[in-house]
């Protein structure tokens, strides 16, 4: 029997958890036939920090600082989704300027996240120099974020009710400068990578996912769009103020690693377009909603107004109660649909907080893309899904 011979030739190999190309601590139990991958069993949990449990013991304001530690490559979008869910429960809406600032930082974050992805994937696939160009550009975005909120990785900038700070002086000019320079840098990266024969050889036709498989497995984000499904929450189920902006859903039809790469590349330019429009049409006014207890009072009122001072202390020490109920809110992050499901019992702490992490699903959808490919290609396929272990293990 042919099957018996096959089974004899199978070999089980452990890849990870400490492996430079697993983007963190992911362990893959590979079943190999020679060099060909027959099956993969992902083993996760090495970075499990119990954030969902910990959130049940913290006030809604303090949970924000936990959220951006989940997907540490794009903390802004996590804060964004969490804030939308809490706002749904509270029934408040941020003022227009706050909404626009959210869109601006979320799109800059998308560019930064895609640049990290491109740089590290380049390292793995032999395009070493791309890494330096990517991180040079990302540094500029992180500088912009540092000007905004003082943090470079875990921002806690978007909070329920709006954003934490208004733009500092000179921020818009620096952002405009970045937007002017970035397309040139993009061009450099494009020339460096897109026609590179090694890159093409290692990505074209590798790790093909069919659209129906992608949908059945819950694959979202650039990986879904690379299969030809035009699904982008920013456009198909617009949240915040995304329906104000003119941009396109980037799709490719091949569903392979190269398509996922090219979708992400073109998405960066779409994000630049959105940020440009948002900056040109930035409304004036407050950045944070003025809710009697669920938002911190403006700083300048603290030394004049006793009520504001009391509100300030209550907000930071006791927290604010959220009406009982449950809400699910999702945003399109750099990796896919990030959703927060929050159950409130009417107290100051979330009764249950659950994060829908795109990487969690992508890691488990890996076998359908990688079966039948070589082990060396597995690294390219895994990288092309852009998993971040912080949100896989939560």
């Amino acid at each position: 029997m042919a099957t018996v011979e096959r089974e004899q030739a199978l070999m089980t190999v452990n890849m990870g958890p400490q492996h430079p190309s697993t983007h963190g601590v992911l362990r893959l139990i590979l079943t190999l036939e020679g060099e060909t991958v027959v099956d993969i069993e992902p083993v996760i949990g090495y970075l499990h920090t119990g954030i969902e449990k910990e959130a049940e013991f913290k006030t809604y304001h303090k949970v924000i600082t936990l959220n951006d530690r989940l997907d540490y490559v794009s903390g802004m979008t996590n804060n964004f989704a969490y804030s939308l869910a809490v706002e749904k429960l509270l029934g408040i809406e941020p003022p227009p300027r706050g909404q626009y600032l959210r869109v601006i930082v979320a799109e800059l974050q998308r560019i930064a996240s895609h640049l990290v992805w491109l740089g590290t994937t380049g390292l793995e696939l032999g395009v070493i120099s791309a890494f330096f160009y990517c991180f040079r550009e990302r540094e500029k975005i992180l500088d912009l974020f540092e000007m905004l909120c003082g943090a470079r990785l875990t921002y806690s900038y978007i909070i329920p009710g709006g954003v934490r700070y208004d733009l500092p002086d000179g921020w818009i000019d620096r952002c405009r400068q970045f937007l002017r320079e970035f397309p040139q840098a993009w061009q450099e990266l494009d020339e460096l990578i897109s026609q590179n024969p090694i890159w093409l050889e290692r990505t074209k036709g590798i790790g093909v996912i069919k659209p129906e498989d992608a949908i059945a497995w819950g694959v979202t984000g650039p990986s879904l769009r690379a299969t030809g499904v035009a699904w982008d929450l920013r456009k198909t189920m617009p949240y915040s103020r995304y329906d104000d902006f003119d941009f396109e859903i980037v799709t490719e039809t091949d569903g392979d690693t190269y398509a996922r790469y090219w979708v992400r590349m073109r998405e960066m330019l779409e994000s630049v377009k959105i940020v440009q429009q948002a900056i040109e049409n930035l409304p004036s006014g407050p950045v944070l909603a003025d809710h009697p207890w669920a938002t911190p009072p403006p700083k300048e009122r603290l030394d004049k107004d006793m009520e504001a001072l009391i509100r300030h202390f209550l907000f930071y020490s006791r927290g604010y109660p959220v009406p009982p109920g449950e809400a699910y809110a999702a945003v399109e992050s750099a990796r896919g649909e990030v959703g927060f499901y929050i159950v409130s019992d009417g107290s100051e702490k979330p009764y249950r907080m659950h994060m829908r992490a795109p990487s969690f699903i992508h890691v488990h959808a890996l076998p359908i893309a990688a079966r039948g490919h070589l082990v060396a290609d597995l690294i390219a396929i895994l990288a092309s899904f852009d998993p971040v272990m912080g949100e896989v293990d939560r």
Partner: protein
Amino acid sequence: MVGRDMEQGTQDKEATQAMTDIDRLLQVARRLKTQFGDAVEEVKVHNGEVTVTVRRDILTEVMRYLRDEERFEMLVDATAVDYLPLRDEPRFEVVYHLLSLTHRLRLGVKVRLQSEDAWVPTVCHIYPSANPYEREIWDMFGIHIEGHPNLKRILTYDEFPGHPLRKDFPLFWQPGMPLEKREEQFEEW
């Protein structure tokens, strides 16, 4: 195939612009009710979302119906909630979030479970993406998934005692700490 359906969906959306998403979801819920009768226990509208609570024994049929007839193609999320301090029974709720790419709708499906009888049938064969989520539900809540092909712990390790997201599991616990010590440690903290 998918592309054509999506175009169709856009046209539908334009035709029924006057109808809000909630109305359309309530229509889905009404059709579910006629199909399954009393087994659909509750239809709830909250914060712009619609959640239907169904009896456990029809869960798989409901899921299959929603996927094939109502075109909720994607299971976006599945999780559970432990209501131990809030109410006696039913203690657990398993929540599935479905997404329809065709109609651009989200629907929540819930199953309520007694603490003595905490199990749900698997929906892996209908939505493959349920596989890791159901393992997570088993790992975190100890809700048994009947018929799951690979029901192992996913986030914690195999020897881990207890199920961490249950409300009676303390926040403070370290490996090797005896069970009765847990509460003391927590109080001290």
